[in-house]
């Protein structure tokens, strides 16, 4: 149930703010997400920052969340819109489990749902201001895809959002190959995240790495990365 405070701004012919049910600009934003397919599934990395314009305002935001049993969603862009998307997905997963038919939503289906949501909002000139990365494994098949705020949607072996497109993807194009081991995959993502920390002003030095395999999702390891190297690792396996 959504509750909107009723506001009458008049007709939308003369008054530009009249149909002001449109997101004009983001406030609290997350920066890049980088994700790759590897031997056992998908690896995804993000930092834990929430910027407010040029201020690095929040430093404990989790921008990757498990969806159902088989998927992981990472988001960059407006955090409040990401929180709203998580609510939509909660409802989707709940309704899916209420069928009680032994089946559960896979990453392809979640990706498709998100694509429809993002594209339809774009058509109404009221986008959810996010670029989403959806990764998962179901029945042995790995899946990795992306949806932008205007509804552009595709799959690939490696994806990145925001600055990651410019800084991380060239590295991934060069160094990614099929059947990467877990260690090589993590090292590759670390390399990307280090470059982003150097060159993206809105990046912070606190990261999260997530792993999705047939067994499930682990959003773990809050790494504190320093320019000189990895300083400390705190394991926190959580089925979020």
């Amino acid at each position, binding site marked *: 149930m*959504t*509750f*909107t*405070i009723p*506001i009458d701004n008049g007709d939308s012919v003369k008054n530009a703010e009249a149909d*002001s*049910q*449109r*997101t*004009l600009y*983001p*406030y*609290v934003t997350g920066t890049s997400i980088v994700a790759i397919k590897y031997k056992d599934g998908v690896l995804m990395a993000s930092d834990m920052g*929430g910027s*407010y314009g040029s*201020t690095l*305002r*929040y430093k*404990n*935001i989790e921008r990757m969340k498990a969806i159902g049993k088989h998927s992981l969603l990472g988001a960059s862009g*407006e*955090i*409040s819109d990401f*929180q*709203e998307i998580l609510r939509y997905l909660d409802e989707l997963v709940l309704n899916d489990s209420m069928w009680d038919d032994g089946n559960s939503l896979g990453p392809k289906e979640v990706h498709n749902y998100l694509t429809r949501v993002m594209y339809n909002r774009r058509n109404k000139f009221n986008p959810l201001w996010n670029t989403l990365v959806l990764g998962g494994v179901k029945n042995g098949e790995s899946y990795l895809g992306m949806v932008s705020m205007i509804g552009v949607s595709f799959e690939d072996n490696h994806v990145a959002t925001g600055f990651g497109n410019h800084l991380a993807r060239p590295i991934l194009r060069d160094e990614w190959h099929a059947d990467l081991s877990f260690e090589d995959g993590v090292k590759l993502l670390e390399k990307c995240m280090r470059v982003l920390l150097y060159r993206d002003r809105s990046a912070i030095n606190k990261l999260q790495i997530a792993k999705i395999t047939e067994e499930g999702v682990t959003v773990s390891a809050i790494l504190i990365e320093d320019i000189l190297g990895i300083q400390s690792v705190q394991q926190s396996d959580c089925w979020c």
Partner: protein
Amino acid sequence: MDLNLDAPHSMGTTIIGVTYNGGVVLGADSRTSTGMYVANRASDKITQLTDNVYVCRSGSAADSQVVSDYVRYFLHQHTIQLGQPATVKVSANLIRMLAYNNKNMLQTGLIVGGWDKYEGGKIYGIPLGGTVVEQPFAIEGSGSSYLYGFFDLAWKENMTKEEAEQLVVKAVSLAIARDGASGGVVRTVIINSEGVTRNFYPGDKLQLWHEELEPQNSLLDILNAAGPEPMAM
């Protein structure tokens, strides 16, 4: 610079919410401005939602008041239906619902703080846009810009009630010193399992910062006092 008395009432504001070992302390300044004029120099920006949950309001005075009023109304009904006090999380989520769904029209940043029996003392920051962030401490309002560094330095986990309140009073006072949109007195509200305590700190109860002078009752006191020592050459 014109007075512009038709400008919307805005609480430039400094608001703060801090958790401590046993509850939360909320703090705020007391200035409400209409353009460059101070419309109210003794406002109360820490508003009650339920017996155990309060909200600090910043940004547009009207927007923050109407959001608080709706949420107080919803929480009242929720408490009756639930049969027990509302939790801080639920209160924060209701504020979020209004803030997010009306993001294009509202200009208010809020800090929800309170105590409930399930999670103890909790603080939720709800900036522009309707993001909810649970934090050990939160700062909002125009004055908060001057406090990021201060909190990075001074914040510690598991403070006592006295330490937490002192931190809040110090911080609001520092922000008032530098932010033109913040001023007046410092108000605090402490919420824990025992209940709610309101405190009030006028200017003379606050510590002096850089280039601030001791308060005097009258210029006459200064003029009649002994002159300064002649300088030695």
